[in-house]
């Protein structure tokens, strides 16, 4: 049982939860995730850790209400308890000084992108962050990103904020303007697919952080399996980050829809 210390709405459907989890706060690194369960009949769902406070013993999760389980989690309030939080799981992001890094996130993928932006900046890289959303209200964590990036570019589908256009346009503008050594992308699978196609064209190494269906999250069930470079990989233990140019995004999107007609 883990207590919710603080709850904040980023938008109508996106919630930030600060959760008591001292052991996880102490051992987590950028890129790690937790498995969360709400209620005795609850489902186990993976959520990337957005940030952590070792001293206060808390971790921060950013949750978008999309299905039954994420909606249940979003409906919890300050002082409520999450039935189970276990982690940190997955491989941490490989951080090193490479030069200029473009970090691009879409939707709720922006939350797990934040610790990666922070870590690359800290490692001495020039970090350009591209944030994308459908509309202005859905842009989250802009201030925190600005603090940790050399430049933040905002893209909205409807042009209500920043530039009008998709994340790929924002990224391509940067690529055309200067030399990029690494691209990191987190967001909906379709977005990562197109970012990956774009950077492949320019031969820029790209890392995608994947969020798939999981049950146990510890390498036991294989529900999260994907194809990377023609080989089956488990997102929970081999990932969640992979060489985006090797990931079969079409298969991943197909697998994400496994239980769609059951919800």
């Amino acid at each position, binding site marked *: 049982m883990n207590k919710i210390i603080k709850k904040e709405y980023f938008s109508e459907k996106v919630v930030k939860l600060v959760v008591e989890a001292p052991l996880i706060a102490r051992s987590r690194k950028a890129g790690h995730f937790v498995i969360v369960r709400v209620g005795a009949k609850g489902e186990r769902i993976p959520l990337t850790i957005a940030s952590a406070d070792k001293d206060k013993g808390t971790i921060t999760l950013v949750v978008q209400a999309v299905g039954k389980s994420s909606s249940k989690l979003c409906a919890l309030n300050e002082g409520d308890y999450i*039935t189970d939080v*276990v*982690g940190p799981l997955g491989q941490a992001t490989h951080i090193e000084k490479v030069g200029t890094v473009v970090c691009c996130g879409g939707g709720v993928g922006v939350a797990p992108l934040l610790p990666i932006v922070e870590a690359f900046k800290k490692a001495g890289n020039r970090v350009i962050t591209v944030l994308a959303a459908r509309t202005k209200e859905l842009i989250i964590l802009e201030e925190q990103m600005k603090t940790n990036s050399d430049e933040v570019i905002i893209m909205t589908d409807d042009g209500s904020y920043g530039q009008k256009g998709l994340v790929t346009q924002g990224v391509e503008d940067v690529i055309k303007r200067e030399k990029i050594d690494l691209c990191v992308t987190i967001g909906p699978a379709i977005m990562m697919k197109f970012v990956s196609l774009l950077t492949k064209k320019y031969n820029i190494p790209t890392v995608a952080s994947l969020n798939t269906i999981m*049950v146990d999250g510890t390498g036991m069930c294989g529900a999260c399996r994907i194809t990377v470079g023609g080989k089956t990989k488990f997102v929970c233990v081999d990932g969640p980050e992979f060489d985006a140019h090797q990931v079969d995004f079409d298969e991943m999107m197909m697998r994400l829809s496994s239980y769609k007609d059951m919800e």
Partner: protein
Amino acid sequence: MDNKEYLASERAQSWREELRKSKSNKERTQIKRVHMNELAPAYRITNKEEVNQGLTKEQAMTEASRCLDCPTPLCMTGCPVQINIPQFIKNIERGEILEAAKTLKETSALPAVCGRVCPQEKQCESKCFYTQKMGKDAVAIGYLERFAADYERESGQISVPEIKIHNGIKIAVVGSGPAGLAFAGDMAKYGYNVTVFEALHEIGGVLKYGIPEFRLPNTIVDVEINNLRKMGVEFITDCIIGRTLSYDDLHEMGYKGIFVASGAGLPRFMGIPGENLIGIMSSNEYLTRVNLMDAANPESDTPVIKGKHVAIIGGGNTAMDSVRTARRLGAERAMIIYRRSEEEMPARIEEIKHAKEEGVEFLTLYNPIKYIGDEKGKVKQMLLQKMELGEPDASGRRSPIAISGKTELINVDEVVVSVGVSPNPLIPNSIKGLQVSKWGTIIVDQDTMRSDIPDLYAGGDIVRGGATVILAMGDGRRAAASMHQALSGKA
């Protein structure tokens, strides 16, 4: 007193002698082996009630009287945890069932579990005098074990094993499956302060997520776990050693010995085209959804596909558990696809029999080579390769060979791949200097279960790569004995 002398002295007790004289061996051997009472197949596939209904006291006492109380009990040589089999069976024969249960618990932490899931026909019962010398059906040792454990539980007079004075030494156990529980029970008996760390939200490991309710009800596992709690064992869920807490953290917290029983992990797939289509999953995933997450219950948030034409790939106990689960979730056609013949199947005979009674089809000498999906990516067909048996391979079983040109296409809407697992990489990856085999199993001394890190012991599937509940428990017991020896030698 060594074990042999101890057994002889027990056998020499006057009540055992009297019991032996009360019936002639001829009379005993004339009695036919008892039949397990079972639910009718047509009824049991509509629910998850336990199929085996156990023996009545009369049935158990009669079956117990078949046992000849051999001077050299061969049966015990077949038991990985060396249960004093004649002593517990003779207690049943004289009607002292609670005494029988106590005898079981001297050596087995989970008798009600073992009575249900042990492959007795390959262990104790295969060594029974009846099997070895008379060509008759063995004494039903497994049924009797289950009877004694169930009787004790239902009597409400569960005995808690005697605990030596607490020595204040802290011991950590990684994983709460059969190996971890057996180890924890023994160490608690020796007087240690035992903490069991479990990664999942439930205690019991494979007994909870793997073995279905109709073969091993969760309530029975919980009773055995509560028994360990009464012995002072502490359980912590949602805690992954190597992640939430490191090996070094455990040292800092004062743990003097660590037993790793983290179990099997990564499910194996066959690497054939279409294997990642929707509706194809590992048996670990399928069983975890249904057993641990209760996904067949409409109140559960976890979904599970309830296929109408379900194929299970493999011939082990996990495959049988999966196919029988599929039947209970409404599969009209539930099939076992196995590349050898039924003779080579690793599953227990009882599981195969139960599956057949429940209408499961056995497609033996078939091997899947390709899956075909619909426009949404859902599996709709599988291509099977017809096989034949060749010469015996490394496993001693005749190896399956493809018959060229002979394939068959069949319709399926769900496939469960049950072709084995690899050890869980979480622990081996997180402890520096731990020696691991090329299969990813932790290397230990076979007798002491000690790894090359002096305070780290390991057992169960993380060492064996995939075995049975009872072998895992045997590992746990051996590790406890040798860790106790090492720690008390230092003291």
